[in-house]
C-alpha cells in the first residue's frame, strides 16, 4: 500500500474572515497507480492527485487579454514564467490527444520572470478556460520532494488557508470503504456516487478501413446504457455524442441527442480477427473490451485483446490499429472538447472554419457537429469522479472539470 503524504506548511492567510483550523486531511483514493506526466494522468482521480503538486496555468496567476489575440498570464506564485512557457510548448509539440488544446497558440514568451505572453492564431475565445486543463499542469518550483514525500512550501498566493497537510492513501474500493467506515479517512476519492460534471469520456476508435459494416455492427449491439450501467464504475452515463454535454444551455442540448441504433446486421460470412488495444490501468476498459468481444463475436468479429500501458497506448494512437479503446479528460467547453474528439478520429480539419464565428454561432456549430457521428469514432460513456467526505470535511467544492478542490477544505472541529 502506498502512501502519498503532502505536508502543507501553515499559511498566514485568512478565508472568509475565519481563523485557520489546521489539521491533516486523510484521503483514500481508489487508484491503481499515479502518473507524474500531466499528459498521461488524465482520469479524474489521477488529475486530482496530480493537481496536489502541479497546477495548470490558469491557477498560477491572473489571465488577461491585452489584445484580442494575446493572452497574458501574470504569475502570483513562486512559479517561474519560463517553466510555464516550457510546459506549454512541450504540450503543443508532444503527440497526445491534448495537443489540439494549444492549437491556437502561436507563441509563448516569458516577458518577465512572472509574465507569460501568449500570441494566438485566432480569437480562440475558450483559450483562457483551456489553460485550466490538467494536462497543462506545471510543476511549481516551490515544491520540493523527498523519497516518498512532497512538501509544499509556504506560498501566500496559493489558496490553501486551512490544512496543515493532506495524506492520500492509494487503495482498492473495499479497503477505502473500510477506512471511511473506521474514520481512518475523511475523504474518499473514487466513490460510487458524486454530483460533479462527467468529463472523462471513453471512445472506441476503429480503423477507417473497417468501414460502415463494422459501425453498424457496433452500434446495433453496443447498448450504451447497459454497458454503462453494468460495466462502468459510477458516476457515469452513456455518451452518444462526440463530446459530453456541458452545463451551458447550448451544451445541454447534446444531452438530448440520441443516436438511433441501426438494425442488427447478419454475421460476416468469413469471420475476421481484430486486435483491440486498451488501457491496462483502467478497469472499466478491460470490462468493456470483454463486452465488445461477447457482443461482436456472434457477428463475425473476433476480438483479440492487447492490454497496454497508457504511454504505449498513446503512442499507438498516432499509428495504425484495428480497434483502440481510450479515455480522455474533456474540457467543459464544447469546442475544445470537440477538437480533442476529432483529433482522436484524425479529423482535425473539421473545426478550422469556426474561428471567425461569434461565440453563440460558434457554440451552435460545435454542438451541431458534435451531434453527428464520425465513422470511425464511437463514443461509449463518460465518467466523473465520485467523492464522498465525512461530516467534518467542510467546504469541499469542485472545479470546472469536476475535480475536488482539496486545498480549500477545512476540518470542522467535532
Amino acid at each position: 500500500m502506498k502512501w502519498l503524504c503532502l505536508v502543507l506548511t501553515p499559511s498566514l492567510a485568512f478565508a472568509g474572515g475565519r481563523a485557520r483550523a489546521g489539521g491533516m486531511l486523510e484521503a483514500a483514493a481508489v487508484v491503481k497507480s499515479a502518473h507524474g506526466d500531466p499528459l498521461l494522468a488524465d482520469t479524474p482521480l489521477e488529475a486530482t492527485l496530480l493537481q496536489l503538486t502541479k497546477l495548470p496555468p490558469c491557477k498560477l496567476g491572473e489571465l488577461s487579454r491585452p489584445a484580442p489575440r494575446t493572452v497574458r498570464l501574470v504569475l502570483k506564485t513562486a512559479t517561474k514564467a519560463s517553466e510555464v512557457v516550457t510546459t506549454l510548448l512541450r504540450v503543443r509539440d508532444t503527440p497526445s490527444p491534448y495537443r489540439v488544446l494549444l492549437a491556437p497558440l502561436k507563441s509563448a514568451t516569458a516577458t518577465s520572470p512572472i509574465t507569460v505572453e501568449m500570441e494566438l492564431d485566432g480569437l480562440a475565445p475558450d483559450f483562457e478556460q483551456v489553460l485550466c486543463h490538467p494536462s497543462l499542469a506545471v510543476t511549481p518550483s516551490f515544491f520540493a520532494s523527498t523519497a516518498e514525500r512532497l512538501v509544499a512550501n509556504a506560498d501566500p498566493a496559493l489558496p490553501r488557508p486551512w490544512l496543515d497537510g493532506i495524506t492520500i492513501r492509494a487503495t482498492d474500493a473495499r479497503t477505502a470503504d473500510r477506512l471511511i467506515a473506521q474514520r481512518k479517512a475523511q475523504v474518499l476519492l473514487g466513490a460510487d456516487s458524486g454530483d460533479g460534471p462527467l468529463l472523462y469520456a471513453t471512445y472506441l476508435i476503429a480503423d477507417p478501413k473497417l468501414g460502415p459494416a463494422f459501425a453498424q455492427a457496433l452500434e446495433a449491439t453496443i447498448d450504451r446504457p447497459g454497458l454503462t450501467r453494468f460495466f462502468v464504475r459510477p458516476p457515469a452515463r452513456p455518451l452518444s455524442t462526440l463530446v459530453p454535454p456541458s452545463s451551458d444551455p447550448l451544451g445541454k442540448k447534446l444531452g438530448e441527442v440520441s443516436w438511433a441504433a441501426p438494425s442488427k446486421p447478419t454475421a460476416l460470412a468469413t469471420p475476421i480477427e481484430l486486435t483491440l488495444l486498451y488501457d491496462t490501468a483502467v478497469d472499466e476498459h478491460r470490462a468493456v473490451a470483454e463486452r465488445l468481444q461477447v457482443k461482436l463475436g456472434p457477428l463475425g468479429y473476433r476480438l483479440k485483446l492487447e492490454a497496454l500501458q497508457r504511454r504505449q497506448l498513446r503512442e499507438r494512437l498516432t499509428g495504425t490499429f484495428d480497434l483502440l479503446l481510450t479515455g480522455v479528460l474533456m474540457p467543459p467547453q464544447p469546442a475544445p472538447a470537440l477538437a480533442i474528439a476529432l483529433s482522436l478520429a484524425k479529423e482535425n480539419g473539421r473545426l478550422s472554419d469556426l474561428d471567425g464565428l461569434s461565440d453563440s454561432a460558434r457554440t451552435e456549430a460545435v454542438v451541431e457537429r458534435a451531434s453527428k457521428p464520425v465513422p470511425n469514432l464511437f463514443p461509449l460513456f463518460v465518467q466523473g469522479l465520485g467523492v464522498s467526505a465525512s461530516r467534518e470535511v467542510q467546504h469541499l467544492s469542485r472545479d470546472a472539470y469536476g475535480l475536488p478542490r482539496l486545498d480549500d477544505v477545512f476540518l470542522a472541529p467535532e
Partner: protein
Amino acid sequence: MRLRWTIALAFIALAMLQVVVVVPLALRNLSRLLAAQQEARVDQMMIAVEAESARLREDVRAAMDELGQSQALEDVARDAAKVPAPPHVTTAAATLMRPRNLDVLALLDEEGRTLSSGHLPARLGEPDDPLFAVTRLAPKQVVPREVELSSSSGLVQAPAIVTARAVDWGDRRVWAVGGVLLDEARATSLSKLTGARVEVHSGGRMITSSGELPKAPIRRSIDVGTIAEIRLFFSGADLIATRTEVLRAFIVLAGLGFLLAIVAGFIISRRVTRPVEALTEAARQIAQGTPGVQVSGVPASGELKTLITTFNRMTDDLKSATDRLVASERIAAWQEVARRLAHEIKNPLTPIRMSLETLLAASQRGPVDERFMGIFKESAHAVLEEVDRLKRIVDEFSQFARLPRPSLAPLNLSEAVQQVMSLYSPHDGLRYVAELEPGLMVMGDRDQLTQVLVNLVKNAEEAMGSTGGAVTVKTLGAGAQIVLEVADSGPGIPPDLKDRIFEPYVTSKPQGTGLGLAIAMRIAQEHDGRMEVGNVPPPQTGAVFRLVLPRMSGR
C-alpha cells in the same frame, strides 16, 4: 601362427564372446525388469490421478450444493426479475464464485439468459446455451463442458467440469451452473501430485501445460468426456539412468575381464607353449643332426611333463641307437675300406711276388747272363710299376680321407670351367668341346669344383681309352640350379654299376682306384649339390656325369 598366439587369441575370443553374448542378454532382461517396475509406478500414479479427479468432481458437487442452499442465491432469485437488475444480481456470480473455489459460475434465468457470470461478466444478458444445457441433465450430475472465456486472443473455449443447481422463488427459477476449469492450476496440481508433465488438450490444441517434458517420456491420457484430454508424461529418465549405469558397469567389468583374459591368455599360453616350443626346438636340432638333445629347465606339468620326459628318454634312446649304428657303420666302413684297400694292395703284390720269384728262379739257374739280365729288367720294371700303383692308391686314399671342408665364395662357374678347359688340348685322338653358358654364379670352393671337373674329364678320358673320342663339357642354368655336365663317347656306364658308381673303390676300369667319383660326390654334397650319372641316348654311346649346384641367389 604360433601356438602361443593361437591360444592367446582363443582366450580373447572367448572373452569377446562373453561380452557380445552375455552383456546384451543381461541388458535386455534388466531393461524388461526396469520397464515393468516403471509401468507399475506409472499405474500407481494414474490411480492417484483418478482419485484426484474424483475428488475434484466431489468438490464441485459439494460447492454447488452449498451454493444452491445459500441465502445469497435465494436473494438473486428473488431480485432477478427487477428492471434494471440490481448490482447485487449482476455481480453475484463473481461474488459467489470465489469463496467456493469455483472457476466457472453462471446464473441463468429460465430462458437461459445470463443474469450474472463470474467467469465471463461480459456475457451479462446474453444466452449461454452450453451451460444452460447442463440444467437439463440429471440432477447433481457433474459433467464436462466447454465454457467460453475472454482471453487476449479472443473468446476461447475452455474445458471445465460443471454441475447445475436450481433455486426457486415463487414461480421463478434461477439456475446456477458452476464448476472448475481444467486450467493451468489443475495441470500444476496434477503435475505436483505425479511429478509428470501434464498437458490439457481441447479442440485439437494444447490449452495449458505444467512441468517440463521429461526425457524418454511415458505417456498416459485421460479423456474428459469428449471435450478434453489430459495427457501425462511420466519420466523414463530413471529407467534410462539405471540402464546407463548398469551398462557402464557392464562395460567396465567386461573391459576388465577382457584385459584379464588377454593377460591370462598370454600367461597361460606361454606356460603351455614353452614346453611345446622347447620340444619343437629340440626336435628341430635333432632333425638337423644334433643327437641327444634334451629338454630341460622348462616348467611343465601333467601331460606336457610326461611328454618332455618321454621325449628326453626317446632322444636318449635315439642317441644311443644312433651311436651304436654309427659305430657299427664306422666299423663296417672301415672293414669295407680295409677290404678294398687290402684288395687294391693285394693286386700289385701278386705281380711283384711273381716277378721276384721269376728273378729268384733265374738267379738260381746259373750265372748272370744276358737272359738273366733280360728277366731282371723285366721283373724290376714290373715291380716298380706295381709299386707306383700302390703309391697312387695310397695318395688317392689319403686325398679322399683328408678332403677339407669347402671354402665357399661367389664363383662364376662358366669362367672357372673355361679356365680349366683351356688347359686341355686334343691328343691321342681325344677332343675337348666346351659349351658354356656365361654368367652362371654359384657359392663354391673354386679348387674343389676344379677338382671335380678334372676328375670327371679324367674319368671320361679313361673311359674312352685309346679309341679316342670327344669330351664335351657344358654349363647351363636350369631354374634355381646350375648344371656342369661332362659327357664322353666311350662305352657308357654298365647298368649294374650305375647305382654304385659314386661309392669308393667302385670302378669299371682296370686301372681305376674308384675314388675319383667318390671324391666328386663328396664335394658335390659339401656344396649342397648332387651328382647324377647317365648314358648318352642311343644310337650314340657314352656316359654323362652331371654336377648339379644351387644357383647363387641375388642374381
